[in-house]
């Protein structure tokens, strides 16, 4: 069965304390993996697309990486404004998109 699992469910960091969020997946026929950011009471906002193992994408303090079984979202020296829920989604070659349940990140000053 296709599955996308994100861990941890919640993460509390001190400002400047770097960490990583994990997205592990078991799907047949992976076409791509995506990261979204969702602020409370808002719709998700697209961050990154990763298509092949070894690929990396960066945006400000965020860097996304992909292996054959998981993706990491690395947050370097986070700031309070990075607080949000980060969603991972996997796209199958059947055009089916499967979302994880997200990691809720809180960054404290």
């Amino acid at each position, binding site marked *: 069965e296709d599955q996308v699992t994100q861990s941890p469910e919640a993460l509390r960091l001190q400002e400047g304390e770097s960490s990583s969020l994990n997205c592990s997946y078991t799907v047949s026929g992976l076409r791509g993996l995506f990261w979204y950011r969702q602020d409370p009471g808002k719709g*998700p906002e697209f961050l990154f697309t990763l298509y092949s193992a070894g690929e990396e994408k960066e945006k400000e303090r965020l860097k996304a990486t992909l292996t054959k079984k998981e993706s990491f979202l690395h947050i370097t020296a986070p700031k309070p404004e990075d607080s949000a829920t980060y*969603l991972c989604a996997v796209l199958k070659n059947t055009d089916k998109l499967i*979302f994880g349940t997200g990691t809720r990140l809180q960054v404290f000053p």
Partner: protein
Amino acid sequence: SQTIHQWPATLVQPVGSPLSLECTVEGTSNPNLYWYRQAAGRGLQLLFYSVGIGQISSEVPQNLSASRPQDRQFILSSKKLLLSDSGFYLCAWGTSEKLFFGSGTQLSVL
């Protein structure tokens, strides 16, 4: 630039009442449109998608229906709401490889 509007932001409805949520997109023509539901502790679930006027595909059998009366308008409806219909409803446009979401409607069925 493209923008997506979704309303209302919050809605409290009694069980058995009807529902109509509306979504409109500006700045693009013939967009693919989607309705998602986000329930607590669950990933975003695709409910409906549309590739054109009058063309609706349903992903999950349920108490809801969707319509696309105009190119950039997508409506989610129900004749009689159930408690289990509560959740955060999101409209989106784009493709599976990049979705642009509206701000969502928090629906509480009591």
